[in-house]
């Protein structure tokens, strides 16, 4: 399977360093997330996740539980 398929992209409101610290706790601990980062230089606070098993909806649920907005960006 092509590894580009494992990259999931979202528009979020993870905008402050405090937000990052908060989601870091959740995302770092998640066993099915290989890698993640938030582009804080971007207006859409784009969250990029690499996961072989999770689907976009799983990430959206995860972030919603933490009270963050999260919408998939498609290419």
């Amino acid at each position, binding site marked *: *399977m*092509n590894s*580009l*398929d494992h*990259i999931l*992209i979202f528009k979020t409101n993870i905008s402050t360093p405090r937000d990052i610290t908060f989601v870091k706790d959740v995302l770092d601990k998640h066993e099915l997330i290989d890698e993640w*980062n938030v*582009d804080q*230089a*971007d*207006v*859409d606070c*784009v969250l*990029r996740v690499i996961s072989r098993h999770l689907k976009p909806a799983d990430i959206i649920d995860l972030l919603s539980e933490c009270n963050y907005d999260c919408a998939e*960006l*498609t*290419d």
Partner: protein
Amino acid sequence: MRPRDENKIRAIKEKAIEMVANEGLDNFGINRLAKAAGVSPATIYIYYKDKDDLLTSISQEEGLKMTQTTLDGFDPTMSFREGLWIQWKNRSKYMLNNHIGTAFFEQLRSSAYKEKMVKTISAEFQKAMGSFMENAVKNGEVNKMPLEVYWSIAFSPLYSLIRFHNEGQSLGGKKFSFSQKLMKETFEYVMKALSK
């Protein structure tokens, strides 16, 4: 399955270089780049982690391209005259044919991207330049001198000619256009200055 789209990657790289060259680093953003390259922002994020990753990767790649052009046909065992002339020809070729690439590097000046790029290309330069200067000193072609002094004399005259050419004028607004003949004439003065 999401295939790697080389055309989109090329468009992203080309437009990024163009945008930085024309507008600088401060105004650069993924959303604007996406619009200019005709792709969605998500496409850019598939290939690059973030803005930093994209600019780092593109500047390193462009730096290597410039290095390869500069070192084309060059061999550190060449005589000083021959080796320096090849570099003049290669550097002028790159700068005259890559206005955008040259302007891109100008914009990177004093940024963290420039530092990372220099780190990447200095190994290549080191490998190829190796003992060029050392040999020239050993063979009695030039005097031993600080690298900065050598650099200023060896290349600044060429860069001035190219700057005049790109601006279309030289001193006092006089029309100017670069030529191989002028380059050769300037090179001979440089050789005179550097030769023992």
